[in-house]
């Protein structure tokens, strides 16, 4: 232990304390964007370039898997194609280059009048009339194609490869297309009731990986779908707990998209004033039943069709299991209310909480306090610098075999819902 270290420690402490005071004076307010959280839109304002390429992904158990994805101006390689956020009425251009050794393409189901290199994007057929690709291709080894369209309906869409679809989607060639209404970027649809809290917009792209298929493709072997057995289940291209790492985490260079949902309670006295919006996309070949703990979500749209068609009444529905059919999308609103407003002094939880030694603490997360915004009863020796006491709930696929990393629980298609106290969490 040297003097320099002691000095460094003292210095940091001073800086830290200063930061805390500053934070206490002005708690962050509701709509402040949080770096590294929420939906991360590809820069480009409707004009995108991407190059299909081979790369790798890492899983929390240490496995590294050969995948296909895209090189973009912002990422050398990414699993899950760039999230394209566009606006109704604004033309979109996607220039695709293909560095794979197989032909590839992109299709944009739900978009009107898609053009490929200026002509209608229609399935390709061979001389006998059999379909060879669902969209015009960028030929292997450097070919290009440019798709253009002008979205006319807001919503959440899945775009994906239209070529050798089974293999290419398993390998990773899919992504989210978010179309915003022209009226407002903080509404899911034209209906003002679909307004969501700014910067509380989240994306859950559900997909899966069978390492055997990926290995076969890497080795150029024929793919045997009869033994298909996915072992990893991904949210935005990551497997839990990588899902709660921030967007663009340096340690996940090829899996840029996090998926933690982060809100504050809704309350007249602070917190969020509007729900969070969670956009679900299921890329898997099976239906997904996704379970947000903490509260029932309200499903407001399926397949980019708002559940409130004019004149026929509101057909949105509450759901503690958000059903996302294979290749479908669902938009749901999440809110959390501090209904009981438990407070250790004025409104304590009405049952004696078990002595801490009676419940397993290690191997669990527990702020030593069941109260939102408080951490208390800290065992001796624990230094406490500030208080936040945020809540964490989990959100996961309730086909529990898909909430695993190769069978290990607390993994797979799972993320966290973080609920901060009403007045936010002091600066980090």
């Amino acid at each position, binding site marked *: 232990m040297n003097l*320099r270290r002691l000095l460094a420690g003292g210095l940091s402490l001073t800086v830290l304390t200063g930061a805390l005071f500053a934070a206490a004076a002005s708690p962050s307010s509701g709509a402040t964007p949080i770096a590294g959280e929420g939906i991360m839109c590809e820069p480009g304002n409707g004009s995108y370039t991407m190059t299909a390429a081979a790369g790798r992904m890492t899983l929390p158990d240490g496995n590294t898997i050969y995948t296909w994805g895209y090189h973009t101006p912002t990422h050398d390689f990414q699993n899950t194609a760039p999230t394209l956020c566009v606006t109704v009425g604004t033309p979109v251009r996607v220039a695709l280059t293909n560095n794979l050794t197989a032909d590839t393409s992109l299709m944009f189901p739900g978009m009107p009048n898609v053009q490929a290199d200026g002509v209608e994007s229609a399935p390709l057929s061979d001389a006998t009339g059999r379909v060879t690709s669902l969209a015009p291709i960028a030929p292997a080894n450097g070919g290009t194609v440019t798709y253009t369209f002008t979205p006319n309906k807001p919503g959440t869409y899945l775009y994906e490869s239209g070529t050798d679809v089974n293999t290419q989607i398993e390998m990773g060639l899919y992504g989210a297309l978010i179309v915003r209404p022209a009226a407002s970027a903080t509404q899911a649809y034209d209906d003002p009731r679909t307004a969501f809290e700014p910067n509380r917009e989240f994306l859950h792209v559900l997909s899966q990986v069978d390492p055997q298929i990926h290995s076969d493709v890497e080795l150029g072997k024929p793919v045997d779908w009869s033994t298909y057995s996915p072992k990893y289940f991904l949210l935005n291209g990551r497997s839990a707990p990588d899902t709660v790492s921030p967007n663009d985490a340096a340690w996940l260079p090829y899996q840029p998209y996090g998926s933690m949902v982060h809100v504050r309670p809704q309350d007249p006295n602070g917190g969020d004033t509007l729900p969070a919006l969670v956009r679900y996309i299921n890329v898997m070949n099976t239906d997904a039943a996704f379970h947000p703990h903490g509260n029932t979500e309200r499903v407001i749209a399926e397949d980019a069709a708002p559940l409130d068609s004019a004149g026929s009444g509101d057909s949105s529905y509450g759901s503690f299991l958000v059903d996302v059919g294979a290749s479908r999308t669902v938009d749901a609103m999440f809110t959390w209310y501090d209904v009981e407003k438990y407070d250790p002094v004025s409104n304590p939880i009405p049952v004696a909480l078990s002595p801490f030694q009676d419940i*397993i603490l290690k191997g*669990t997360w527990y*702020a030593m306090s069941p109260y939102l915004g408080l951490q208390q009863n800290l065992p001796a020796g624990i230094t406490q610098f500030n208080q936040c006491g945020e809540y964490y709930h989990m959100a996961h696929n309730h086909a529990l075999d898909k909430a695993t990393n190769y069978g*290990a629980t607390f993994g797979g298609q799972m993320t966290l819902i973080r609920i901060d106290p009403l007045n936010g969490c002091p600066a*980090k």
Partner: protein
Amino acid sequence: MNSMITMSPRAIALGAVVALATGALLVSSVATRQDVHAADSNTAVPTSRVMEATAGIRVLSAHSVGDGGIIDLRYQVLDANKASIVEGDVTKTPQITDVDSGAVLHDTAAMRHGHAMRPAGEYFLLYYNQGGSVKPGDFINVSIDGVTLNDVPVT
């Protein structure tokens, strides 16, 4: 089950001495934190042969996640039998101490593996970051069963 490492007599002796002395703080075998600047993604993660020998694990990384509310500690299992204490013995859960602030974290969530660990597999412990005390750029000491690995960079 084969152990993936063999414990050298020297490592045993060193471990014993340390345990007898003060338990903690002295066992960083490769100090990487040579200067006062903050940890970043280029800072090497130190290793402790003593920890590898006694706990059967190698610490791989420590990251601040969940908007700073969680510290995500990753490790690789070198000896599945020894490593089972990390998740299996709640009295020996690794403890994190922030080098600068002295804050101690020990509330964790673990990825459980159906009661057995896989040699060479990578695992995680997620620490509730009490009060946000550990920040990106900090260094932490990781203690397992009396053995401490110093100066693990947090990014």
